[in-house]
């Protein structure tokens, strides 16, 4: 089981309120991603759930039981840290067995559990090495191994991939997703990388300045962001925002249109000059200085023969406009 409920959780460090007031329900078996810019309180929120920080007020329930004032070890949660936080003086085997040893489990049971975890994570050949002798990806797997042997109610991941290089990151992302599909245990994953959020999550919680901006599945957030912040944060490249008369024409104080929803056509309503052009082969990203509107990001599929200084004509897909009122809320 791993159902986690936050009720009116508040956290302040001295006079600084980091989390003003949060209510959130995480269902058993869900893969939930907390995403937001740095300093938005996502790591603090995770640490509150873990018990590494005390809430200022509010209630944290795990499987229906009040866990607000339980010490971290008693909450039945396992955490994977950004820095891996392995014990450098212990072998991989001892690292993974450490929580079992703390729980007073028998040697035989420890050995069998460690070996099972090592097999799942491809660490069998490294069990007698020290963390210092492992690569970044292997260290991360040891940290995950240390978490899974405990068979916790939920896993907490605090930006676990940010210390890895790009290629490894993609690989580990898939491994963690597969792990979730195998174990079917609740996972809470903190990241500032919206690509990780979109690819891994069942449910994304977008945080900004300690507040939840929106909760929803990746595609819900992509299709119907509730405000300008979520609209701008989810999606890569960023959604274009247009204000003024052009926005009024489409019925909003601000309108948003994603780069992939602008087509390069002959005789479209917008014309402009290509500034920066990035050709990836599979996609082409253009920054177009549109007359009377401003700079828009455009994403086109495949190779587009447009370069710096070219004049282009653009047509936004009419049904893909996002309309926002003057407070930045979605008008849908």
């Amino acid at each position, binding site marked *: 089981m791993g159902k986690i409920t936050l009720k009116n959780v508040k956290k302040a460090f001295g006079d600084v309120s980091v989390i003003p007031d949060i209510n959130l329900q995480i269902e058993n078996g869900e893969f939930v991603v907390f995403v937001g810019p740095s300093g938005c309180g996502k790591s603090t929120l995770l640490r509150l759930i873990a018990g590494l920080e005390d809430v200022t007020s509010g209630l944290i329930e795990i499987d229906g039981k009040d866990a607000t004032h339980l*010490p971290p070890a008693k909450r039945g*949660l396992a*955490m994977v840290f950004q820095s891996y936080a392995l014990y450098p*003086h212990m072998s991989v085997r001892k690292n993974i067995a*450490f929580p079992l040893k*703390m729980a007073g489990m028998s040697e035989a049971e420890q050995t069998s559990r460690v070996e099972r975890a090592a097999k799942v994570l491809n660490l069998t050949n490294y069990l007698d090495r020290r963390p210092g002798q492992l690569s970044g990806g292997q260290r991360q797997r040891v940290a995950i191994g240390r978490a899974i042997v405990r068979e916790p109610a939920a896993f907490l991941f605090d930006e676990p991939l940010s210390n890895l290089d790009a290629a490894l990151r993609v690989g580990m992302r898939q491994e963690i997703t597969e792990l979730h599909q195998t174990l079917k245990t609740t996972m809470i994953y903190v990241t500032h990388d919206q690509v990780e959020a979109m690819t891994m999550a069942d449910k994304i919680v977008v945080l900004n300045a300690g507040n939840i901006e929106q909760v929803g599945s990746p595609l819900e957030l992509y299709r119907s962001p509730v405000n300008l912040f979520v609209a701008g944060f989810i999606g890569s490249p960023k959604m274009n925002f247009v204000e003024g008369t052009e926005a009024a024409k489409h019925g909003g104080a601000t309108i948003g249109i994603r780069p992939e929803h602008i087509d390069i056509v002959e005789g479209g309503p917008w014309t402009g000059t290509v500034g920066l052009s990035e050709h990836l082969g599979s996609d082409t990203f253009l920054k177009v200085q549109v007359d009377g509107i401003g700079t828009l990001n455009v994403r086109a599929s495949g190779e587009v023969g447009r370069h710096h200084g070219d004049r282009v004509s653009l047509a936004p897909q009419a049904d893909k406009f996002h309309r926002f009122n003057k407070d930045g809320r979605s008008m849908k």
Partner: protein
Amino acid sequence: MARAVSTRTKVLNTAIAGTLGFLMFFPILWIIILSFKTEEDAIRAPLEVLFQSGWTIENFLTVQARSDYFKHFSNSVIISLGSTLLGLIIAIPAAWAMAFVPAKRTKDVLMWMLSTKMMPPVGVLVPIYLIFRDTGLLDSLIGLTVVLMLINLPIIIWMLYTYFREIPGEILEAARMDGATLKKEILYVLAPMALPGIASTILLNIILAWNEAFWTLNLTAANAAPLTAFIASYSSPEGLFFAKLSAASLMAIAPILIMGWFSQKQLVRGLTFGAVK
């Protein structure tokens, strides 16, 4: 790229370093030489001492016969080990608290601790002497152990604090998540990781306590007198007995010198711990 150094500079630098090293070591060397001479020979001119006099171990025998070396030695061992152990018991939790749960005034507390080392010990001699007299701690091993622990405590805490600060907090948090109680967290994670630092703290503190002369001379008479008092007893109003004083000094410093020699690698490693990552 290695810097180019001419042979002349190398020779000159080596000569200067060698001379300085010899000058620093000379007093010890002289003590060693004098301790093997008779009293009459010991007060001769240096060159005569070296080349025109014989060698003897009589001083060591006399010293042992006159004042029981092994009793002073065991007192020294008890107070230096005892004060170190007692100091660690107090300093480890203190340094843990200051390194991992710092409060608003932690820095001030640390500075205050250090400031106690700036005061000349003689400033508190009278109150401590009176306290010791009234509580019957004068000339007792327990009293001396406690005093030496207290005077070295700021240094122990400072050193441990510095080493603990090098340990990433996330590792201790991981231990907490893994179900370690505070005691187990310190025992299984913090202490092994800070071991080089703790070891050099222990060594340094033993050396400091072993060599401490002010309190050991002022608070002891016969029973608890360690080796420092044993040396001092050879500088008497009746006159200096150079050869015996040298023999006593050599016997007093030899154990700590040997310990220092064997542990110097550990000591240097600990003292430079965290300096290079």
